[in-house]
Every structure is written in structure tokens, then in C-alpha cells.
């Protein structure tokens, strides 16, 4: 009997222990799953926050800063206890987002739709609406207390309206408007094809800028600086990559880089050339656009479009305003400060004959930048390639087209 009782006790204890572990483990597992679910769950968006507020304050229709910086809230017009609703909404938002304080003065606008309603409609519409070709974006527009659908062309508005009708969403709750497509904003330092002037190029462990695409004696290629080769002066078949070295980024090989000469007009002890330029043959399969220069804003590296070379200019005049586009300082513009200057190159015995100086910003890596004048719209005239600058980065030096295309330099080039 005793043995039977002890056995029963033992089994009971065992069951308790095992069962407890299972629930604990399953609790842990559940917790783990919960934690895992938490980590998989998307972070709460502002729309989610607004919707949560609208659950507490049904009249809440959206919150935004107007053009004057005034915090403004939509409240559905039928709300009888306006101030209470405002206070509740602010309190609810403040708990979620410390940016709002109760001391903020809120401007209230009459709204037609609660935010919760707008969000429910939006969540219902965005998948089917996006399947319509030409729809660019959908939005709960808290600044207008409406839904917003951006389309490439208003010609598809009918299709969008049909979908709204099918979904039971009132047409007057939705603004359908033409919107520019959203595109990836590449920079001069990104991988960009086809190649255009102004893009970052890499050789050995250095960075330079692609000066301009050119055809030389029937060979497609591009021009950059002679000092943007493995050895300045003379051909070593330097390999180029855009934007940086990798098998898929290989774009060309140095094929022309005239030697520097001594004597004659060259100062004693120095070696000279008329341009700091070299030509590279484009690699097979690499696309480039002749005559095209990447367009960016002043000081920006973000590509916003393209310039088109419509002519070359052999030599600038002092006072002309010229631009450059380079991988380090983007686009800069300034007046020609001096022309046909014979200048030494710091840290070398090189003297560059007849070079041109421009008062505009520049920095290391901009070597090779195309130098041009904007004539009208996106049309430009090509003046040369940038190769140097002063220590303070306020003045750059370039080799003019007249020198680049001299016999003894790169010779005749087709650049557009």
C-alpha cells in the first residue's frame, strides 16, 4: 500500500514537473513566437498612430503643419464637444509622439471624414488601385482630409473611379491628380549606364571623374586626366571601372597618353605638356552616350538629368562663366580668372603650358571633370577637362579643348 501511494505521488510530481516545463517551454516558445512576431511586425506608421487616436477620438481627421508652421487639426464637423475632442486628440498624440505638447496652439479645421474612416478606405483600395497601370501613389492626405491617388496621366482617372465605386469608396473622398513618377536618385558616385561625362571612375586605388565620351580615330572611348592613369605620361593600359573596381564595373583601358617633353618652351629641369589628358578605349559591351554630361544641381552629386554637348570651344576668355561636374564637389560654376597660364604642378617637375583657371569650388577626385558653358536649357559647349586646383578648393585649373586636340596631345576627337 505504501509503495502504491509513493508510486502515485511520484507520478503526480513527475507529471507536475513535466507539465509545468511544457507550459513554461510553450510559454517561452509562445513568448519567443510573440517576440518573433513582434520583431516581424512592421513598426507603427504615422497613419497607424493617427488611426489609434481616431479610435479614441472618432472626430479626429488628421494633423499637420501648415505653410506658416501652424499645427492644424481636422475635426469632423459634427463633433459637438470640440474643445474636449481637441484636448483628447492632443493628449493621445502626445503620449505617442513627444513632439506635441499641450501648450501648442492648435488650429482646428472642419473635416468631413474621420481619419479612421480614411485609413480603412485606403487599406481597402491600395492593392487593387495599384494594379491599374499608371497609378503612381496612394495616400491618406492628412493636410486635406481626403484620400489621394497620384496617376501618370488623368486619362486613367476613369479606371481609378471605377475601382473606387466597386470598393464602395465615395468619389468625393478621393483626390485623383497627375503626379510625376518617382525615380531612384542616382549620384555621380553610383553605377550608372550608359556612361556619361561627370561620373566617378576608379583606377588602381584612386578615384577621378570621367571627362567626356569621345571617338578618336574611329575608336569609341572616353577622356580623363593623364594623372588619372597609372603613370602620368606614357601608356600602361590602365584599367578603369565605374564607379569602383569589380568585374562587372570594368569600362575601359588607357590607350593614349602622350609623353611629357623637355626643352624648347619647357623650363629647364621640368617636363611639359599642353594638356593633362589621356584617352581610354571603351570596353566591349559597355554603353556610353556621346555628347552627354550628367546634370546635377550646384554643389550636388544627385543626377537630375543630362546636358547635351552641342559644340566645342577651343579657348575661353577671362570673365566667361563656366561649369564643371565632378564626383567630389558635384557641379560648380564660376568666372574664368586667367587664361593660357603656364603653371607648375605641386609635388612634381611637371609644367603644364597654357592652362585656364576658373574661380569655382573643387576638391580631390574632381580631376577629369568636364568643363563647359551652359548655352540654353540643357545645351552646353565643351571647353575642356579639369585637372587641378588650389589648396583652398576655390579655384580649379583645366586643359582647354584646343590643347587637348593638338597634335602631340590626343589629336582630333569627336565629342558630340
Amino acid at each position, binding site marked *: 500500500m505504501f509503495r502504491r501511494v509513493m508510486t502515485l505521488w511520484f507520478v503526480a510530481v513527475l507529471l507536475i514537473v513535466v507539465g509545468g516545463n511544457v507550459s513554461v517551454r510553450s510559454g517561452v516558445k509562445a513568448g519567443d513566437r510573440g517576440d518573433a512576431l513582434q520583431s516581424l511586425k512592421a513598426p507603427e506608421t504615422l497613419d497607424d498612430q493617427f488611426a489609434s487616436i481616431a479610435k479614441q477620438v472618432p472626430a479626429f481627421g488628421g494633423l499637420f503643419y501648415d505653410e506658416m508652421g501652424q499645427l492644424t487639426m481636422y475635426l469632423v464637423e459634427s463633433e459637438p464637444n470640440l474643445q474636449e475632442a481637441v484636448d483628447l486628440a492632443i493628449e493621445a498624440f502626445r503620449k505617442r509622439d513627444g513632439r506635441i505638447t499641450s501648450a501648442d496652439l492648435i488650429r482646428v479645421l472642419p473635416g468631413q471624414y474621420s481619419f479612421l474612416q480614411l485609413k480603412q478606405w485606403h487599406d481597402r483600395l491600395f492593392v487593387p488601385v495599384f494594379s491599374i497601370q499608371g497609378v503612381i501613389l496612394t495616400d491618406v492626405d492628412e493636410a486635406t482630409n481626403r484620400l489621394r491617388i497620384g496617376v501618370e496621366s488623368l486619362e486613367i482617372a476613369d479606371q481609378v473611379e471605377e475601382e473606387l465605386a466597386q470598393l464602395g469608396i465615395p468619389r468625393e473622398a478621393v483626390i485623383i491628380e497627375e503626379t510625376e513618377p518617382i525615380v531612384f536618385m542616382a549620384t555621380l558616385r553610383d553605377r550608372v549606364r550608359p556612361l556619361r561625362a561627370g561620373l566617378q571612375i576608379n583606377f588602381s586605388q584612386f578615384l577621378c571623374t570621367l571627362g567626356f565620351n569621345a571617338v578618336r580615330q574611329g575608336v569609341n572611348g572616353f577622356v580623363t586626366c593623364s*594623372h588619372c592613369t597609372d603613370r602620368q605620361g606614357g601608356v600602361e593600359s590602365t584599367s578603369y571601372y565605374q564607379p569602383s573596381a569589380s568585374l562587372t564595373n570594368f569600362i575601359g583601358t588607357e590607350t593614349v597618353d602622350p609623353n611629357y617633353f623637355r626643352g624648347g618652351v619647357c623650363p629647364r629641369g621640368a617636363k611639359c605638356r599642353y594638356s593633362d589628358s589621356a584617352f581610354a578605349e571603351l570596353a566591349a559591351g559597355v554603353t556610353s552616350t556621346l555628347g552627354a554630361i550628367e546634370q546635377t544641381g550646384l554643389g550636388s552629386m544627385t543626377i537630375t538629368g543630362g546636358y547635351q554637348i552641342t559644340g566645342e570651344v*577651343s579657348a575661353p576668355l577671362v570673365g566667361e562663366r563656366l561649369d564643371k561636374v565632378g564626383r567630389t564637389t558635384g557641379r560648380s560654376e564660376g568666372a574664368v580668372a586667367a587664361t593660357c597660364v603656364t603653371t607648375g604642378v605641386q609635388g612634381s617637375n611637371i609644367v603644364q603650358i597654357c592652362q585656364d583657371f576658373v574661380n569655382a569650388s573643387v576638391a580631390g577626385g574632381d580631376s577629369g571633370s568636364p568643363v563647359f558653358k551652359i548655352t540654353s536649357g540643357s545645351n552646353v559647349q565643351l571647353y575642356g577637362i579639369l585637372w587641378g586646383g588650389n589648396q583652398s578648393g576655390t579655384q580649379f585649373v583645366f586643359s582647354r579643348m584646343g*590643347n587637348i586636340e593638338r597634335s602631340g596631345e590626343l589629336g582630333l576627337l569627336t565629342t558630340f
Partner: protein
Amino acid sequence: MFRNATLGLLLVLVLVIVGCGFLKSGPDANSHNGALQSRSIEGIKEKTFDDLLVEVAKRAPGFGGMFIDEEGALSVYLLDVTQKATAEAAIAAVFGPDRIPPSGIRVLQGQYSFVQLKQWHDRLSPTVLARPGVILTDIDEAKNRLRVGVEKLELAKQVEEELTKLDIPRKAVLIEVTEPVKPLSG
């Protein structure tokens, strides 16, 4: 009569040959647009811009250089400011008629002809640039002077010595401290 006809034919032939040569010697009419289009002017590529300014000076003696001033006007140095029309014609001949703005050129009193400045510069540059600390030499078209850039003003004396040896008047040369120029690979 036969002789006259032959002479006449020869005369026509000569005129044709000379006429063709004359037409070819001028720059391509479409090649000048703005400053200097290089595409179709083969011979000009071998000349520097300063060489072209010398050509202007040969057509308009007393031409001292030209530049775009802060107001966007084409400003031209002349030793004789009454020679404006001659200077305009010379600039148009070398750089094309489009180089002359519709409002014409603005004339400034110059002290040195460009030919003179260039001769001095060509003599000065290789010698002076061989001195450590001398950074650049230039014909400053905006100031009708030569310009020598040096790392430190203490070097000015050495440059002046050189000018004396080369018989270049000191007042024709601006010596100024200039930042060195460095290549800008990254």
C-alpha cells in the same frame, strides 16, 4: 586675236586658282560661334590662344588683349583708343564675327601691345619657372600686364633680377603670391 584669247583664258585660269586659294585660306564661315569653335579649324589647334591674340595684334597694331568684364562686355586694351573699329575688324577676322557682341567692344587704354607682352612672356617663362617657388607665368589679358605667381613674396627679388637680365620692364609685370596648383585625383 588667238593670242588675246589665250591670254584671256590664262587670266581667267589665274583668277580662278587665286580665288579658290583665297576662299580656302579663310576660316570656315560656320566655325565661329561664340568664342572659338575648334571642330573645323585644323591649323588653329596648333596655336595657343595667345598666338591667336598675336594675330589680332598684327592686324590691329596696338591691340593689348581682351576679356569679358564683370558687366559681360568684351573689353579690349588698345594703345590708341581711337582704333576701335580696326580692333573690332581684327577680332572678327581671327575669331569670327560672332565674337563681337551687338553692342561692340569696350575700349580700355593699354600700355603694352599684346605682341610685346607675348615676346616678353616667351622669354621670361622658361627661365623664371625654373626657379623653385615660382608657380606660374601668364599674360594677364584683363590687366594688360605679365603676371608671375610665387609661393612667397620673398621670391619677388629673384624674379625681378631675372626681369632685369631679360630686359623686361618691372612695371610691365605683376608679381603676386599664388597658391600652388595640385592635381586632384582622389
